[in-house]
């Protein structure tokens, strides 16, 4: 009896922070593995792949940030947002506009683009805080569709004057500038990998600390989180802000990958739905899922449509693969949830 009491007393004295870290440790972004992937991406890929694949890995680096932001909202906070593409578009627009209007260093304007997307993300998040589940998915889809109309009407800046910065004739379109230290495709790819790495570290930093624990609690039960004294509104807004910032920065970095005349195609409603499909396929409970989702949607898609035998078939039907993958994933998840007796 004494021994039991002593052990109970010892466990009660153990620092709770360490115990909580132990519980959440396996689920966040392992820094060792992240550094290995980072070094592989920075040194190995440009050395062993040709310019075509470097361009694909460049797209993958951008998309991984966007996918991680959507996965973070869905998997770690339980908020299904289809509006990440809107923040992505805003970040891209602001970055291009500032690149033409100012001579600020490129990383600074990318961060400013991210902050502009954050402001609008929080603005969107405020009313959306009151709804959840299906209605949140719909309200964010509506906002993404609305943003598509706004962006296609005002168009992306291409070197003109005024607020919109759009030139009158197509021959006057100017190229979007890149940072002076990353002017070539390979150096810009490396710059993007560094940017993506910083974004992933930022997200994992937040997930491993107080906000991450609060989000986990909100995801499991909002009522329980409220009862435990967690400021649900504040932490949900923080999640929206972080996700919007990541998406905005991804948009800003994407701006440099398109040399001239950015089009709306990457920011339309199909992209919004496609994004959530690949994010679910990649996995939403860890940040690695974002990387996997980006791999599926850029490199794998290109590989299927370029190199594989019967690539003409895949050129037409590769996107159906993602729809099929999403269905399999959701059916499997529902079965697992039913087995565990948890509502899906």
């Amino acid at each position, binding site marked *: 009896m004494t021994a039991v009491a002593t052990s109970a007393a010892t466990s009660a004295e153990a620092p709770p922070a360490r115990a909580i870290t132990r519980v959440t440790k396996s689920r966040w972004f392992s820094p060792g593995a992240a550094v290995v992937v980072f070094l592989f991406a920075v040194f190995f890929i440009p050395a062993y792949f040709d310019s075509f694949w470097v361009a694909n890995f460049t797209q993958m680096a951008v998309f991984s940030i966007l996918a991680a932001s959507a996965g973070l909202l869905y998997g770690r906070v339980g908020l299904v947002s289809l509006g990440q593409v809107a923040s992505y578009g805003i970040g891209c627009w602001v970055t291009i506009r500032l690149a033409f209007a100012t001579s600020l260093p490129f990383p600074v304007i990318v961060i400013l683009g991210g902050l502009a997307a954050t402001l609008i993300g929080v603005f969107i998040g405020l009313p959306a805080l009151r*709804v*959840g589940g299906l209605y949140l998915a719909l309200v964010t889809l509506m906002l993404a569709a609305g943003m598509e109309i706004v962006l296609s009407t005002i168009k992306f800046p291409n070197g003109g004057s005024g607020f919109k910065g759009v030139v009158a004739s197509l021959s006057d379109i100017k190229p979007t500038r890149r940072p002076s230290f990353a002017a070539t495709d390979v150096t810009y790819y490396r710059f993007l990998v560094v940017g993506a790495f910083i974004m992933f570290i930022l997200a994992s930093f937040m997930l491993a600390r107080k906000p991450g624990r609060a989000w986990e609690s909100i995801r499991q039960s909002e009522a329980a989180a409220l009862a435990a004294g967690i400021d649900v509104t504040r932490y949900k807004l923080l999640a929206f802000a972080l996700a919007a910032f990541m998406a905005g920065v991804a948009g800003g970095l994407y701006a440099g990958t398109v040399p001239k005349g950015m089009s709306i195609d990457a920011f339309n409603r199909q992209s919004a739905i496609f994004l959530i499909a690949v994010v679910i396929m990649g996995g939403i409970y860890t940040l690695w899922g974002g990387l996997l989702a980006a791999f599926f949607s850029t490199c794998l898609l290109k590989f299927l449509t370029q190199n594989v035998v019967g690539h003409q078939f895949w050129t037409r039907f590769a996107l159906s693969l993602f729809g099929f993958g999403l269905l399999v994933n959701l059916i499997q998840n529902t079965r697992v949830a039913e087995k565990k007796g948890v509502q899906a």
Partner: protein
Amino acid sequence: MRAIANNRDVSSLLGVPIRRVEALAWLGSGVICGCVFLLLPPLFKSIDQGTLTWFIIGALGGAIVGQFSSLWITFFASLTIGVIESILTPFSNSLQFMSDFRKMTPFIVAVAAIMWISRRRTVVLSGREMR
């Protein structure tokens, strides 16, 4: 169908043939949707998957106003959205922006409806225990 919409598990315990009713619901909505899309081609110069996605997302606006439960409210809301969009079409000069952004009507109406529906914040407790 209404019993299943209310509570799927209890309906199955009461002997409602869930799968058959659900299949019937999909069949019914599929037939209606098919008929609608048969009527569309004369209205558009070209129809591709992009136009159809646009159409469906816009139509969701009406469904949201009807809260996915009232067919009549959905019908009249969709009609109103269509009329507003058409009224905004002929603006020009200083009001050109209204014409440019008229396609946003279903989204603005839907977002406003969602905000109105959820004007009182509620926390839903799960019916089952979470393990």
